[in-house]
């Protein structure tokens, strides 16, 4: 038996852990671009902020895109509710609320991540330290994930936690693609343009997939392959299909355990079926942006339905 409020806490705890890490990954991708390009990288930083869903808030505070300001805003600014620091704080508050549902190892890993990031992000980050700060963030979230997978019982507590992780991750991957879809779309203007590999690599890098891509596709970066990898690949842990495979699985466990199906089951299955049947050609033909916008909308609806069906409030 699980309180609705506890399920809610587990769900959001994991969404925010995922988000804390995604912010670091986005800054990492932006940083690579800035380092490898000779001209101004402000366009790249703009798309990083768009992917993070933080562009509007950033512009209210700053007029130009600079590496230092964007990194500060996405990593340590507590007035930005999605920054790594805000996210880890929210994750920890949720963990504290549901700590009776967590193993000691899991709670301690979250508490320690919060303590060490709070210390590390207390002062503005020196640009020279940025790479090591990003590494530390990814290491802390990896430790949380490791403790969680290594010690938690695979029951409803685990299921609600995973639902949070995968809803957030699917949203994140879809947003990154949506912000960059013009880079992937082969069009008249693209043919023969000087658009370089870095743009594509940055997409892969922002989901930590630049190396594994080559294991799978064994070739140069190609827009269709990159989109295929991030949308349809069943084995790629940040792809939309991968996320929905696990969302469906955990919802099925809950449905079986409780002996009751809800609206969220139908929604998740529908999206999963659509992804399974789709080919990247069909998606490009119908319009990548339209596809992604629809996906993000459905994914948000799934989150709302889970909250309602399992009495989060």
């Amino acid at each position: 038996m699980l309180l609705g409020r506890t399920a809610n806490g587990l769900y959001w705890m994991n969404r925010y852990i995922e988000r804390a890490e995604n912010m670091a990954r986005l800054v990492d991708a932006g940083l690579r671009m800035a380092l490898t390009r000779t001209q101004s990288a402000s366009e790249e930083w703009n798309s990083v902020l768009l992917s993070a869903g933080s562009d509007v808030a950033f512009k209210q505070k700053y007029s130009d895109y600079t590496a230092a300001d964007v990194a500060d805003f996405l990593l340590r600014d507590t007035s930005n509710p999605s920054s790594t620091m805000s996210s880890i704080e929210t994750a920890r508050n949720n963990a504290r609320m549901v700590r009776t549902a967590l193993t000691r190892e899991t709670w301690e890993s979250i508490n320690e991540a919060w303590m060490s990031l709070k210390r590390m992000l207390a002062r503005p980050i020196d640009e020279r330290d940025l790479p090591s700060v990003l590494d530390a963030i990814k290491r802390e979230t990896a430790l949380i994930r490791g403790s969680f997978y290594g010690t938690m019982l695979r029951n409803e507590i685990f299921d609600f936690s995973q639902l949070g992780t995968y809803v957030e991750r699917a949203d994140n991957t879809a947003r990154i693609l949506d912000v960059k879809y013009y880079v992937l779309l082969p069009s008249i203007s693209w043919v023969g343009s000087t658009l370089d590999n870095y743009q594509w690599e940055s997409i892969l890098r922002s989901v930590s997939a630049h190396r594994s891509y080559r294991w799978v596709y064994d070739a140069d970066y190609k827009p269709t392959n990159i989109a295929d990898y991030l949308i349809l690949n069943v084995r790629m842990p940040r792809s939309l299909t991968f996320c929905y495979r696990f969302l469906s699985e955990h919802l099925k466990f809950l449905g079986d355990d409780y002996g009751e199906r809800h609206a969220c089951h139908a929604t998740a299955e529908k999206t999963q079926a659509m992804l399974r049947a789709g080919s990247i050609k069909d998606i490009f033909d119908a319009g990548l942006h339209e596809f992604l916008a629809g996906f993000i909308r459905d994914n948000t609806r799934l989150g709302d339905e889970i909250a309602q069906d399992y009495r989060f409030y």
Partner: protein
Amino acid sequence: MRLAAFDEMLPEVSGLRRPYSAYDRWLKEQDPARLTEKMQDAERVFRKTGITFAVYGEQEASERLIPFDIVPRIISGNEWRRLTQGIEQRVQALNAFLDDIYHRQEILRAGRVPRDLIAKNEAFLPEMIGVRPPAGVYTHIIGVDIVRISEDEFYVLEDNARTPSGVSYMLENRETMMQLFPELFQKIKVRPVENYPQLLRQSLAAVRPQTTKGAPTIAVLTPGSFNSAYFEHAFLADQMGVQLVEGQDLRVVDGHVAMRTTEGYKQIDVLYRRVDDSFLDPLTFRPDSALGIPGIMDVYRAGNITIANAPGTGIADDKAIYSYMPEIVEFYTGRKAILGNIPTWRCSEEDSLKYVLEHIHELVIKEVHGSGGYGMLVGPAATKNECEAFAKKLAAKPSNYIAQPTLALSTCPILTDKGLAPRHVDLRPYVLVSDRIQIVPGGLTRVALKEGSLVVNSSQGGGTKDTWVLDD
């Protein structure tokens, strides 16, 4: 002013006390540098596991540790036996008093306690008149604060009959000590406290409503994760294996209190609540309370839920009632109180007020409804100006205050940079009441870390120690 205090380890007159002899032998073999290291280890453990408490009104340090000292406070088996007899007697009297006050009020008729003290007391809940809680128990969990001033003199400082806190520190302190010094527990036989959560659970199950069939569903009610004692609420729920609920999780469904789970509403039979009376039911008490459960008092009156501790138990541990405890114990148990009270002047009485005002610099003066060491004056430690300011407050509303002599609380050594140094301590053993009375051998020893200070409250710079009752 420095008080000559009785040191529980090394009294000036008689030398090392027996209960400490084995520990002292061990201590003398230790390298001081290693002990300092262990002290730091302990702090890291506490911080890592999040054993913190919130201090109201402090923005930055919103989560702090209660300092932990690694020198145990040791009580012999004999001393403990004597204490438990006194505590049992007192707890029996407290429950009998509550039952009487909310029913026939014999003690008022007999003139042993003034009627006004009850009728005009905010802690008295008229809503409880005529209500008999399941199994007839009012105060299920009690923390009796005890001070010692000599080899043989123990006094009760306060009866905490509402929602006594601190038991998680008793358990974590022991856990930490066993981690830091496993070899000590092999050398010295210390009675265990670890089974407190199981005892608490059994105790709560035993007082379930008569209407409950089968194993009762138990839950701990917390005001939420921003409450200062939240760690303890979560800790106890976790250790007992029961749900930790907030008011927003609960509602009245079909005459029962039920919690909102992922599968719908599930009935609760026993609620160990850690919220104050006034926040329990917005329909009965504070309409602005967002913490409570509308209608829970109706369910309670119908006998369909056990609330532990029962609403209205505050009337038994009110500081104004405290001074009548010797009469109360005698009235209900027919015997003189085994554990004495500290002599108390009720400032509401004219003669007492006169005495208190004349001797303000010698006395400890407390607000009747205060807690946590706030709103009190320690005369000997206060400046002349502080005393004068307090005297004005006192004269303006005498009935709001009681006064007690400044006792030389016993001391126990703590580890400082310069080695062992004596500091004043008190003791809070925890008592569970169901169809029987159980007292866990140990308790929470609070220690005033500042040299000479008599204020042990954690909110005012107090720390804690592991408390050992020897199996001898």
